[in-house]
C-alpha cells in the first residue's frame, strides 16, 4: 500500500513565504506518514498553476492545497478537481468563486486593517503614506483597502498619498520608491503591500537621505524574510506585518486530511468528504516591531 500523497500548488515557487507554508504542510503530513509535493510556476503565471492542479488530479493525489495567483483563473481547475473527488482548498490567496473546500490564510482585509491601525497609532493624523504594490492582485487590493480603513479608524486625518508599481522586483522597488519619495516629499511612511519591495523601499529612504533623523521615512514591511526581520530588530524598518504561513500549511494539510478521511459526519458543504471547518480559517497576523521575541523565532527559515 502506497503512502497517501498530497500536493501543494503555488506561484512564485521557491519564495521564502511559500517555503514556510510548504514546510508546515510537509511537517503536518509527516505526523500521519503521508507524503507531499510542491508544484507550480516560479513566476506570476496563474494559468500554470491551473495546469499544475490538473496534473496533480491526474496523478491521483489525496488532496490539493493551492494558493490562487489569480482567483478566476484557478476556478475551473479547482472545480474540476473537486468534481473528480479530490479535496481541494485554497490558502494564502483565495479563489472565492470556486468550489474549494475552504480558504486557509490571512484575512487580507483584517491584516491590512491591523497594519493601518498600527500606522495610525504611531503617526497619527500626520501619516502620509506611499504604497509600493503590484497592481491587480486581489490579495493586495484587500490589504490596501483594510489598511486605509484601519488607519482611518484611529487617525482620520492620515492619508495615502500615492501608489507605485514595484513589479514584485527588488531592484525595481528601489527605483520606483526612490522616485516616489522624490516626487512626494511629504510622504513619511512607505507601506509595502507585499513581501518583495521592503528592502528596496528601505534603500529608497537611504537614497534620499531620509533613513534616520527627524525626517525619517518609516517603512512598514510585509514579510518575514530573515534580512527584513534583522532590519526590524535593528530599527531600520518601522515594523513588519508577519503572517503565519507555516500555520497555513499545517491547517491546509489537516483540512485536506480530514476531507480525505470521512468520519461519522459528512462535510457540511461537500457531502461524501470528511468533516472540515465550514468557515475560512484566519491564521492571523502579528505586527512585529523592534524587540519582539517572535523575530528571533522566525529568523531561522525552514529547511525543505
Amino acid at each position: 500500500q502506497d503512502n497517501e500523497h498530497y500536493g501543494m500548488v503555488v506561484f512564485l515557487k521557491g519564495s521564502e513565504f511559500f517555503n514556510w507554508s510548504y514546510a508546515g504542510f510537509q511537517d503536518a503530513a509527516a505526523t500521519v506518514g503521508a507524503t507531499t509535493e510542491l508544484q507550480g510556476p516560479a513566476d506570476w503565471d496563474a494559468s500554470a498553476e491551473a495546469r499544475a492542479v490538473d496534473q496533480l488530479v491526474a496523478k491521483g493525489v489525496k488532496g490539493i492545497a493551492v494558493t490562487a495567483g489569480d482567483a478566476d483563473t484557478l476556478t475551473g481547475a479547482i472545480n474540476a478537481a473537486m468534481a473528480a473527488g479530490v479535496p481541494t482548498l485554497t490558502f494564502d490567496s483565495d479563489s472565492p468563486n470556486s468550489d474549494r473546500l475552504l480558504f486557509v490564510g490571512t484575512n487580507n482585509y483584517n491584516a491590512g486593517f491591523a497594519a493601518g491601525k498600527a500606522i495610525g497609532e504611531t503617526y497619527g493624523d500626520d501619516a502620509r503614506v506611499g504604497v509600493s504594490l503590484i497592481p491587480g492582485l486581489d490579495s493586495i487590493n484587500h490589504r490596501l483597502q483594510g489598511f486605509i480603513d484601519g488607519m482611518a479608524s484611529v487617525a482620520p486625518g492620515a492619508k495615502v498619498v500615492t501608489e507605485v508599481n514595484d513589479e514584485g522586483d527588488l531592484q525595481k522597488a528601489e527605483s520606483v520608491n526612490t522616485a516616489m519619495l522624490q516626487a512626494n516629499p511629504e510622504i513619511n511612511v512607505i507601506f509595502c503591500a507585499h513581501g518583495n519591495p521592503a528592502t528596496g523601499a528601505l534603500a529608497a529612504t537611504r537614497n534620499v537621505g531620509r533613513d534616520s533623523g527627524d525626517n525619517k521615512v518609516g517603512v512598514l514591511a510585509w514579510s518575514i524574510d530573515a534580512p527584513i526581520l534583522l532590519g526590524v530588530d535593528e530599527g531600520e524598518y518601522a515594523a513588519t506585518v508577519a503572517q503565519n504561513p507555516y500555520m497555513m500549511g499545517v491547517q491546509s494539510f489537516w483540512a485536506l486530511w480530514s476531507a480525505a478521511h470521512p468520519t461519522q459526519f459528512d462535510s457540511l458543504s461537500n457531502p461524501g468528504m470528511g468533516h472540515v471547518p465550514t468557515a475560512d480559517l484566519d491564521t492571523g497576523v502579528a505586527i512585529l516591531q523592534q524587540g519582539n521575541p517572535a523575530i528571533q523565532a522566525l529568523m531561522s527559515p525552514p529547511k525543505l
Partner: protein
Amino acid sequence: MSHERKKLRPVTVQYIGLISVTLLIAVGFHFSFGNLLTGANLRVLAMNMVFEGIMALGMTFVIIMGGIDLSVASVFAFAEILVGKLMVQAGLPVIPSVILTVMACGMVGLINGVLIVTLRVHPLIITLGTLLTLRGVNLAITDGRSISGFSEEFLYLGQGRVFGVDIPIWFFGIAALILGLALAHHRYFRQIYFIGGSERSARFSGVNVDRVKISMYMLCSTLAGCAGVMAAAKYGAAHWGHGNLSELKAIAAVAVGGADIMGGSGTIVGTVLGVIFLAVVHNAFVTSAINPFWYDVVNGVMLLLAVLLSRFISARNQRELQSAKQKKLDLNIPKTNASED
C-alpha cells in the same frame, strides 16, 4: 535515372532520434513511477503544452523565414483580455467577439511585419519591443485584474471535448495538419524557405518578400491569438500574466524540432515532435515528483542537447559526403607524377 535519394536525410535522423528519446522517457518514467501513460495523465500532458504548441506552429513559419517573434506571449494574453472585454464588458456575443479578437491579434502581426520590413531592423528587436509594449498595455487596460464570467458556449471552446479529446487539442492537431501540408507543398508557403535561405535571391526570383514576411508575422500572431482565446475559455479567466515566457517555450520547441533559427529549414512535423518532447519531459518531472526545482535545469540541458544533436547530425552528414569524395580522391592517383623543372 539514378536521381533518387538513397540516404536518410539528416532531418529524418533527428526526427527518429526525437521520437525514440521521447518514447524512452515516457516508458521509462511510466515503469519507474507509474501513471505516466494513463489516459487522464496524457490528457493533462497534452493540455499542458497545447497553447505553446499552437504558438510554436506559427513560430515555425517565422523561423523558417529567418525571423523570430518574441511577441507571441503578450499577444496570447492580449487575446484573452480582449475577448474577455468584448464579451463580458461590452456584452458582444461569442462569435463576433472571437472573430474581432483574432483579427486584432492579426493586426499586431501586421504591425510587427510592417515595422520589420520598413525599418529593416532585426525582428528580434522589433518583436521584443512589441512584447514589452503589449504586455504593458495588457496590464494597464485590465488594471492588472483578471476578467471572468464567460458564457457557457464560450467556455466550450476551451473545455469542450469531441470524441473525448479537448477542443484546443483538436485545434492544434488540425492546424498542424493543414499548415504542415501547406508548408510542405503549397507554393505560397514554399516561398518562405527561399526567403530564409537567401532573401536577396528570393527577391530576384520574383518573391514579394515584404508581403510574404508580413503575412507570416500575421499568421504567427493570429495563431497566438487563437491560442489566447481558447486559453481564456479553458481557464474561464483572462489575465495579463498568463502565458508568461511562452514565447521562449515555443521557440525552444521549434529549435528542438530541428529547424535552423537562422532560417531556411524546419518543418511542422519537427515542431510537433518538439512540442511533444517538451511536454513529455515536463510531465515526467511532475509525475515522478523529483525535486521540481530541477525542472528548469533539465529543460535547459535538454534544449542544448537537442541543438547539439542536430548540429552533430549535420556535421556527420557533411563528413560522410566528404568521405565519399575522399575515396574518389584516393583512387584517382595521377599517372604522371608532379614534375619539377
